[in-house]
């Protein structure tokens, strides 16, 4: 049963292949359904694999399924093989699960797009890559998936490539990720040089020198920072919202961006040997969480808020990783996948219903028009805000607990971030679903232009009808399921007793004993829980009141935050421009100096020849003078030789 693991990536691969070659012929709805089926197949295979894994116990829950030898040179030997263990199965389950729902959602969302089949081609390819990433038994196979998801992310962000912003965003995402990939590649090199293998198993079992472990950990973290949008490489993620919304939900919220967290958890034993690296990870994580949360407070684009919120939540996960609470990180990853996917899909539903309006200031009172979307979104909001007993509360709580153990300062920042999270999500919900109906005031022409530009084809009647409307069932059904999961996800890992901590227990063979659980007193736990809950409630309450009717509160939306600390400008001036200038300078050097030297030789020959030509005067006397001069020259040598 456990061998069904091979089918997990195979299903989307088959779907991808079919759609790649026949997608155009299969056409609009059917290709979407095929993709969804492929994804569903993967989910079923994942479940079977999970069942197979459950039959094993303890350390046995570590199964490697070799497919074929991929690369082999000298002592390097890399198999294309899958590692089935609790961690990967957890990942696979929620990836395929959420993935299936989002595929289903996309069937409706993308309906009418002229590149409909292509979308699913990419989506299936993405799913395949993501599954390879989490199932890969060696760093290299994981890297295959890692880069694959990056490429698919690129394709999907710039899916509407005729929009220059989309094209630019895709490129930005790829390049920024590439910077992180350098870390991953160097980590692989260092690993290979150190232990002679790239297998995760070997790496995790190898005793490493502290410096090496720190090196590997930090290099991997560099990779993870790229993929999981940590400071300072997070800048691509907000731009990535240019992609279709299901993409944002699947790739830029639920799955791909968590790959970095997964990767670090995968090499948890290495991190354990590298405390400095862990501290760095924790600090960067909490800083990311805090900074992104502040930015999210001042955003008006419904998806941008969610994007920064994602960055912030990823910061939380990193914080957990840095604090050694790997199970907490995974737990939050799962719950986050539920509620963030939910909210993205909800936002997509809103955008869909609003005919591609994304500005929250132009929405309001939407719960009347699209109730399912609204209520499911609200569940997501409560969950992310950390209101008990929704799933976010449980997972965030565990992270803050771990942070407190690492350092109260980390905890404090985490707490403030939690407060901010509650606040900006409340702001969003108030602006979008409550308050007065502002979209009627919106400029019709602008709408029309946006819609046209969006290339997001609609039926003629929809074009004419500007009233928001609820989405079709294929879109709402996933919302409902996800809402349920977001609400109840906490059940996976209740903190009351080790018996309830199902996920932690399940992950135990991978991460070993959680230090925090063992060492924290229950009283402290309860106090911390209370404080966090309070913070969340304060955030919710403040946001609810502040944004009850107002739409513009400049004091709360400082330009600095709205512009995301001018990060893009800074990157542009500090990195892009200088490197471009440097490249231009190199080109100038290449043309004028390096090639100039080559052409200089030619010029020299030409000039020298011209000069010598003037010596060839045409007068025979001067020719004779040459002969005489040559004679003097040769005789001079003779004199030198016989006399000197």
């Amino acid at each position: 049963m456990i061998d069904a693991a091979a089918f997990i990536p195979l299903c989307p691969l088959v779907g991808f292949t079919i759609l790649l070659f026949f997608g155009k012929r299969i056409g609009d709805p059917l290709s979407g359904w095929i993709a969804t089926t492929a994804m569903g197949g993967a989910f079923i295979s994942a479940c079977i694999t999970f069942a197979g894994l459950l039959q094993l116990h303890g350390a046995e829950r570590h199964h490697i399924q070799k497919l074929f030898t991929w690369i082999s040179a000298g002592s390097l030997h890399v198999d294309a093989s899958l590692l089935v263990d609790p961690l990967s199965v957890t990942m696979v389950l929620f990836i395929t699960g959420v993935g299936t729902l989002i595929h289903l959602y996309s069937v409706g969302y993308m309906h009418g797009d002229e590149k409909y089949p292509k979308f699913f081609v990419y989506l299936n390819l993405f799913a395949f890559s993501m599954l390879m990433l989490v199932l890969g038994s060696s760093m290299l196979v994981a890297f295959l998936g890692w880069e694959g998801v990056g490429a698919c992310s690129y394709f999907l962000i710039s899916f509407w490539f005729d929009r220059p912003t989309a094209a630019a965003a895709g490129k930005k995402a790829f390049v920024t990720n590439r910077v992180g990939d350098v870390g991953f590649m160097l980590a692989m090199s260092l690993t290979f040089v150190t232990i002679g293998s790239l297998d995760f198993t070997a790496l995790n079992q190898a005793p490493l020198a502290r410096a090496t472990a720190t090196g590997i950990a930090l290099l991997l973290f560099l990779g993870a920072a790229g993929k999981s949008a940590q400071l300072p490489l997070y800048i691509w993620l907000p731009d990535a919202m240019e992609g279709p919304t299901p993409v944002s939900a699947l790739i830029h919220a639920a799955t791909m961006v968590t790959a970095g967290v997964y990767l670090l958890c995968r090499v948890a034993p290495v991190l354990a040997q590298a405390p400095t690296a862990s501290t760095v990870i924790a600090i960067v994580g909490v800083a990311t969480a805090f900074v992104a949360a502040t930015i999210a407070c001042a955003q008006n684009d419904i998806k941008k808020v969610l994007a920064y919120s994602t960055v912030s939540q990823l910061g939380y996960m990193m914080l957990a990783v840095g604090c050694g609470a790997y199970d907490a990180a995974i737990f939050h990853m799962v719950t986050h996948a539920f509620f963030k996917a939910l909210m993205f899909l909800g936002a997509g539903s809103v955008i869909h219903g609003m005919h591609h309006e994304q500005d929250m200031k132009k929405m309001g009172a939407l719960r009347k028009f699209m109730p399912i979307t609204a209520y499911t979104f609200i569940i997501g909001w409560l969950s992310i805000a950390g209101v008990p007993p929704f799933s976010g509360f449980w997972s965030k709580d565990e992270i803050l607990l771990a942070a407190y153990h690492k350092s109260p300062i980390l905890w404090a920042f985490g707490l403030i971030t939690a407060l901010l999270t509650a606040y900006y999500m409340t702001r969003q919900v108030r602006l979008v679903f409550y308050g007065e109906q502002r979209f009627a005031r919106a400029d019709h022409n602008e709408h029309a232009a946006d819609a046209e530009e969006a290339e997001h084809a609609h039926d003629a009647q929809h074009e004419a009808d500007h009233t928001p409307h609820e989405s079709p069932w294929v879109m709402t059904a996933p919302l409902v399921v996800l809402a349920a999961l977001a609400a109840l996800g906490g059940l996976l890992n209740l903190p009351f007793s080790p018996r309830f901590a199902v996920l932690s227990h399940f992950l135990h063979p991978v991460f070993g004993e959680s230090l925090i659980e063992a060492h924290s007193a229950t009283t402290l736990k309860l106090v911390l829980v209370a404080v966090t809950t309070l913070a969340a409630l304060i955030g919710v309450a403040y946001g609810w009141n502040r944004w009850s009717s107002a739409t513009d509160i400049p004091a709360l939306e400082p330009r600095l935050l709205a512009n995301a600390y001018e990060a893009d400008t800074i990157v542009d001036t500090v990195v892009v421009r200088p490197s471009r200038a440097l490249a231009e300078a190199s080109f100038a050097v290449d043309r004028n100096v390096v090639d100039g030297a080559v052409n200089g030789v030619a010029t020299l020959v030409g000039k020298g020849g011209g000069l010598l030509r003037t010596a060839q005067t045409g007068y025979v006397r001067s020719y004779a003078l040459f002969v005489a001069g040559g004679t003097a020259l040769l005789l001079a040598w003779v004199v030198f030789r016989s006399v000197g």
Partner: protein
Amino acid sequence: MTVPVHLYLALAAALFSIGAVGLLVRRNVLVMFMCVELMLNAVNLTFVSFARELNDIGGQALVFFVMVVAAAEVVVGLGVIVAIFRRRSGATADDLHILKG
């Protein structure tokens, strides 16, 4: 005791040099050609001097050949000169400098 041979040889060298200078500075082709004759005579003198010093008839025999060559050269050379200056006035080598560069 006769005059030492090195004086003859130095004289020949001087004659040779004067001939060379003449060839280099004169512009009349015929005079240039005469300067070549001077040089050849210098060589002849050298041969004869060596022949005396080496007590060897060979040197004198060589002079004989040089003279023949000189005669043949003069015929051909003058032929060329005549062929040129029959078709154009003047007889300086400087007049002919179309070929150059």
